[in-house]
């Protein structure tokens, strides 16, 4: 099975092309082909996982050579796949959650005339994402990286007949380009330093490079990661990306693609291990984003945008963990997996609510939906408990570990990062409870023509399965450090470190803060009446509601100066460059007009010119000789 891992990429890719090329004749069955392709990847991935599990921990690394990609130049590169615990973890997450979401989309997109195209794009995404995580070199990873970017762009703008949706797709694409440049620069640095882009070759030589170089590589990789994972300062696109159909938000903008940045950092652990500065910046970015996202989440009334802010914040946790170095890598991935389950589950729940409420997304127009959609309420509730970190649900096992690890270390760092993570947990509890209570509890604030109803089984079954994961996966993977041990061949073995506060203290503090958050949210949004119009905002709320004015900042700092620079350059081009050129041209034309007189049309003057030319040349050469 390990040697068949190329099927993981080939099958969904082939299905994607088939769906696009088949055209309308595939409309009747195309979505089932998409589901089948995705399910195949899960079967193959699971087979590879079992086979890997049967090996010793040390030999759980399998290289699959595909073909010679670049040869004959200084850069020698084979295209190959690397099957190891880290990539298989991602394969299982992507293919399992992906298949469930494919299934869900069959019902969700039922009335869309372009459902077949939607499935083609979803398959394309799965293929690209699996290529990203299975690649054995940065260059091949980059192909997948761009592939998921493309799929994300196509799916955000899937309903591009609405101009603002098309704009959102463009925004995501442009912001991601900034990150991509980071990855390209990182690859350039690696090629210059190590002469190679393969993981194996690069990681084998990291010891020979200077710390400054490694820091530069690490920081450029971080730029790439912030773009793809919507981390500060490149986070502005994620909220707008919610323009895409909800299954897309669940799969791409919650569970998988946005976590690629975390994957990139953890995969490059060999580099980050040797550069404390870069690691510190990663952790700082993570801590900042987790607070930023949580604060934005508190102010949003759009259910999908609130969930998007939450995603940003949760990925901030993962970044923070990855920035902590070897103590954190495994927990970053652990949280990534559990988050993939509960956040995808909640997005599907949100989609289910929208399905029953005629695409309403304003939470002030929800309320009391628990009776109308029982399954959605229960499954969403499990996801809510998981993200809060209430024991024994999944988030407790993964997030608590990150908070504990953040308190590990010396000097000011454990206090800053630990407190950020701790406060973040309280904020998370507040905004997620606010979302939950506003949607499912309180009084019904529906608009007149709403008749909410439960979604069909094709949608509820994936939600139920994901809810089971939200409930039990954390405990299952954390028991006996199963998950950390499984990842050990990649992330390395770490001795246990004591945090600056003792573990029971941290846990008590966390749970207290979470409880406070829930209670406050209940008082304000569960028991009390929620106004259907947003009240006049305080400055803080306004700031958060507008994503900390990131768009305005971007406009003021980048767009306006950019526009002015362009205008100046255009002016300089017209005045100086064109002026010089036109001046030369005028001069040349005048020269031409005067030279023209020699071309009098009279053969005697032509002959004279030849004779003069001959005499001149003879004189020239003879004088030169003598």
């Amino acid at each position, binding site marked *: 099975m390990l040697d068949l891992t190329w099927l993981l990429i080939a099958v969904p890719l082939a299905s994607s092309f088939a769906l696009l090329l088949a055209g309308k004749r595939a409309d009747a069955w195309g979505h089932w082909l998409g589901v089948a392709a995705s399910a195949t990847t899960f079967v193959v991935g699971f087979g590879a996982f079992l086979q890997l599990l049967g090996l010793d921990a040390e030999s759980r690394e399998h290289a699959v050579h595909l073909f010679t990609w670049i040869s004959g130049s200084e850069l020698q590169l084979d295209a190959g796949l690397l099957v190891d615990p880290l990539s298989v973890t991602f394969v299982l997450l992507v293919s399992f959650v992906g298949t469930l979401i494919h299934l869900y989309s069959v019902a969700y997109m039922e009335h869309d005339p372009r459902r077949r195209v939607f499935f083609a794009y979803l398959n394309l995404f799965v293929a690209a994402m699996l290529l990203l995580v299975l690649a054995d070199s940065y260059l091949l990873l980059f192909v997948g990286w761009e592939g998921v970017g493309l799929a994300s762009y196509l799916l955000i703008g899937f309903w591009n007949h609405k101009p603002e949706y098309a704009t959102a797709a463009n925004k995501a694409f442009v912001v991601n380009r900034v990150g991509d440049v980071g990855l390209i620069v990182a690859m350039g640095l690696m090629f210059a330093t190590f002469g190679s882009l393969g993981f194996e070759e690069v990681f084998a030589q990291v010891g020979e490079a200077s710390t400054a170089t490694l820091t530069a590589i690490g920081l450029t990789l971080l730029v790439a990661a912030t773009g793809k994972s919507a981390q500060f300062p490149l986070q502005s696109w994620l909220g707008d990306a919610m323009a895409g159909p909800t299954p897309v938000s669940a799969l791409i903008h919650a569970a998988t693609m946005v976590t690629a940045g975390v994957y990139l950092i953890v995969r490059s652990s060999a580099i980050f291990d040797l550069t404390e500065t870069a690691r510190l910046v990663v952790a700082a970015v993570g801590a900042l984003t987790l607070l930023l996202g949580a604060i934005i989440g508190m102010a949003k009334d759009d259910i999908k945008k609130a969930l998007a802010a939450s995603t940003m914040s949760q990925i901030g946790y993962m970044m923070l963990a990855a920035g902590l170095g070897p103590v954190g890598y495994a927990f970053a991935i652990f949280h990534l997996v559990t988050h993939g389950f509960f956040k995808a589950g909640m997005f599907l729940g949100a989609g289910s609510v929208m399905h029953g409420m005629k695409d309403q997304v304003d939470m002030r127009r929800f309320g009391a939906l628990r009776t109308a959609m029982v399954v959605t309420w229960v499954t969403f509730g499990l996801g809510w408990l998981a993200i809060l970190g209430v024991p024994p649900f999944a988030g407790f096992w993964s997030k608590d570990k990150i908070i504990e690890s953040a308190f590990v270390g010396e000097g000011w760092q454990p206090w800053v990062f630990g407190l950020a993570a701790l406060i973040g947990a309280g904020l998370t509890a507040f905004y997620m409870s606010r979302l939950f209570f506003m949607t499912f509890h309180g009084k019904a604030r529906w608009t007149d023509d709403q008749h909410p109803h439960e979604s069909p089984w094709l949608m509820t079954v994936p939600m139920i399965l994901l809810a089971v994961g939200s409930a039990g996966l954390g405990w299952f993977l954390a028991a006996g450090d199963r998950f950390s041990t499984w990842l050990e061949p990649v992330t390395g073995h770490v001795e246990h470190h004591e945090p600056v506060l003792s573990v029971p203290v941290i846990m008590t503090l966390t749970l207290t803060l979470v409880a406070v958050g829930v209670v406050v949210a209940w008082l304000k949004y569960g028991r009390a009446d929620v106004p259907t119009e947003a009240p006049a905002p305080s400055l803080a709320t306004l700031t958060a509601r507008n994503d900390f004015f990131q768009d305005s900042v971007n406009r003021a700092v980048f767009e306006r100066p950019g526009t002015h620079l362009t205008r100046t350059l255009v002016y300089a081009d017209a005045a100086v460059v064109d002026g010089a050129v036109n001046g030369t041209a005028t001069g040349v034309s005048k020269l031409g007009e005067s030279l023209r007189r020699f*071309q009098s049309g009279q053969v005697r003057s032509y002959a004279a010119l030849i004779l003069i*030319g*001959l005499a001149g*040349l003879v004189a020239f*050469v003879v004088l030169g*000789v003598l």
Partner: protein
Amino acid sequence: MFTAPEISYAAFAPTIIVLLAGAVGILLEAIIRTHTTRRHVQLGLALGAMVAAAGTAIVQWATYDAAGVVAQAGMFVMDRQALAWHVMLLVFGILGVLLFAARTRAGEEAFTPLGSTAPGSEDEAEARRRGFELTEVFPLALFAVGGMMLFAATVDFLALFVALEVFSLPLYIMVALARRKRLLSHEGALKYFLLGAFSSAIYLFGVALLYGATGSLSYADVAAAIIALPDMSPLFVIGAVMVLVGLLFKLGAVPFHTWSPDAYQGAPTPVTAFMAAATKAAAAAALLRVVFTALFPLEWELNWLIWTVAILSMVVGTVLALVQTDLKRMLAYSSVAHAGFILVAFAGFSPQALSAVPFYLLTYGLATIGAFAVLTQVREKAVDGTVGAEATRLGQWAGLGKREPLLAASMGLFLLSFAGIPLTAGFIGKFQAFAAAIDGGAWPLVFVAVLCSAAAAFFYVRLIVLMFFTDVPEDQEESIEVDYHPYARVVVWITAAAVILLGILPGGVLTLFEDAATLLTGL
């Protein structure tokens, strides 16, 4: 006592085929009375002879060893350089002859019905009334091609002169054969003839001086004598300069270029196409052999001559092309500038020139034939709908890209190739030529050449802008008609394909020319 020279007829086979076919063509002109039959037979004969000659030359390339053979001791050699030029000249000849045969839809040829009549005379009107159509231009072209092939293969100054006259005399006549604007055609031909005779005299004078100084006429002996002489004698320096001037005249370099705008403009456009490509190629071939086998001991002295003429040609050609309003004259001055670029490759006497110059001429010749082939198809239309002469005023080409996108695009391609824009053959050609000059240490000359290329791009691109980005004046919409014959179209497609192919995958052809970069002295 006179002994008959040993002549290796097999080695001369390509030239003999072409010249013999020319002689047969003259006889056929007299024998076949119906002109439609005669046209077909003449075209078939010319094409067949040239294809056969090219095939023979390719067989010779394959069978001779790398150095080639001496066809006649001290006079003619068939080395790979000569064979490469042979094939190139034959390709130009084939494309040119195809253009000769193209007619308008109304059946109008490019050539006058009876070349021997005076313009505007009673005889001319009579010939037109009777529907005469002489086809002597086909055998004339064969003679010209044959002469050029000898021109590229000779290693003797006197044989060079004979070959020069063999290909020049038919060209003088061909220039005079235009159907329309007969006076302009006659004027161009007469100027070409007079100045050609003048430069031939200069050349012969130079040969006489060289013979006086060295006692020999063969290239190798002249070179040996120059080396053997104790000190520089003005006699052979002046002789060498005069010989070069004769050849530079054929190449169309400044200040010996004055004939070319008038001849290019006056000649029937198919003849201009053939002449521009083939004459320049033949002149470059002869110049290459003379410089590299006979006059190379004068390298230091002649280098300055080449620098001066190259710079003058590039600058004057470019500057005068900028101010032209007639397309044929613009292309004529562009060919003057190209003569300068060709000379750049000679500077420094780098051996790389031996492959760079032929490649440059190939790319230039293909684009030139293509551009003039497009020109034959764009015609003025009278109010009553009859199709008239070619539209050669620049302004008349405005908006052609919208009406005939493919034709205009091929014209754009040829212009970009002239300008030396990457992905066209012209870029590779210029690159090779400039690389040869750099190899010879002539980088300041290359600097000037690059500047001139940039300035020259202006008037090429101006026509492209005119064709594609300029709105057509209302009254002009109806006054232009694209009238084509399949032969002309075929020529355009072939040359366009070759220009692209040589621009993208020049490797194979470059390797062939590198194989051809050796010269036989012929002794």
